[in-house]
């Protein structure tokens, strides 16, 4: 398969997976919080490498990234990124607190949220394709947006000159949580997904 041709196909398929996945993720989050959570229609964005960090307020903005490895039939990874305010809103929602800083318990809770959101995404991908996918434990980092985003950007860099990601916005009451999800199957796995979906 040619990389050039893959780009537009990849975008369409990831878009669709993203739409289904976000729905599942929000349902899971809502169950976990035992609260009604509204979700905006996920936005699929395609950006040049240079513009990627802008979505999170610039390269030096501090963000939280939660990274999980995918294995079994599909190899790759999935990453969930939140800006610091969203991370705080989310953990305060979860822990029923009004903290101004992320403590150890909040960080642990964030890992768990990343785990749930990512797993729901992956589950929908798995049932859509009939492929078995296992998800690793989450790894969390709090650092500059540019540095965290270099991880998915580099992986897209292997196959394209742009980065594709799905922006999901959750809302509970007054607090908004802006989250960005990057699903990154490796090339061979991507071909598997396309072929299972009848695109290839």
């Amino acid at each position, binding site marked *: 398969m040619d990389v050039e041709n893959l780009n537009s196909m990849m975008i369409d398929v990831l878009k669709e997976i993203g739409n289904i996945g976000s729905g599942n993720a929000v349902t899971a989050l809502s169950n976990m919080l035992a609260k009604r959570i509204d979700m905006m229609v996920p936005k699929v964005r395609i950006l040049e490498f240079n513009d990627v960090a802008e979505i999170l307020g610039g390269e030096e903005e501090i963000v939280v990234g939660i990274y999980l490895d995918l294995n079994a039939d599909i190899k790759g990874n999935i990453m969930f990124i939140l800006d610091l305010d969203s991370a705080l809103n989310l953990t305060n929602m979860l822990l029923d607190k009004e903290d101004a800083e992320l403590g150890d318990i909040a960080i642990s809770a964030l890992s768990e949220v990343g785990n749930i959101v990512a797993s729901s995404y992956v589950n929908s991908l798995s049932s859509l394709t009939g492929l078995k996918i296992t998800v690793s434990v989450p790894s969390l980092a709090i*650092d500059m947006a540019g540095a965290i985003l270099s991880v998915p950007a580099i992986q897209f860099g292997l196959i394209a000159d742009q980065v594709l990601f799905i922006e999901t916005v959750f809302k509970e009451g007054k607090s908004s949580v802006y989250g960005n999800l990057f699903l990154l199957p490796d090339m061979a796995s991507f071909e598997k997904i396309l072929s299972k979906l009848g695109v290839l």
Partner: protein
Amino acid sequence: MKKIKVGMADYNVVKAPGILTTLGLGSCVGIALYDKFNKVAGLAHVMLPSSKEIKNNENKAKFVDTGIELLIESLLNEGAVMKNITAKIVGGAQMFSFNNNSSILKIGERNVLATREKLKELNIKILAEDTGGNYGRTIELDAEDGSLLVKTIGHGTKII
């Protein structure tokens, strides 16, 4: 003084007085080249170790090997002399860690190794290095003296 921003998979060159900066380097590597006699500085922000490993390699500034070649070409155009050029390299962090480290997470380390190798091949001396670790870095290269400011979140600030 003018401060020029170098983005991901990008490079730029400036003559003194001027500053080149790249923000939030993670697993990418910032390659700072400098000719102290002609006061010409160049900075590249590369993402991947080799243009030879993958098919989609048209964007030369994305790779260590072709990125360095491009940067040197621009430096020479701005009046730098090859034998004067020295290097400082920063970045190549591993932002996330697991027990079974997959190769994609080790890309930072591979980027640094590839950079050292390419510079050696071109006989360019590496004067200083701030690489590895698990955190991001912002850098500023001053064309006046070739000093390189490295800023981090929680890991201090230094000049190399």
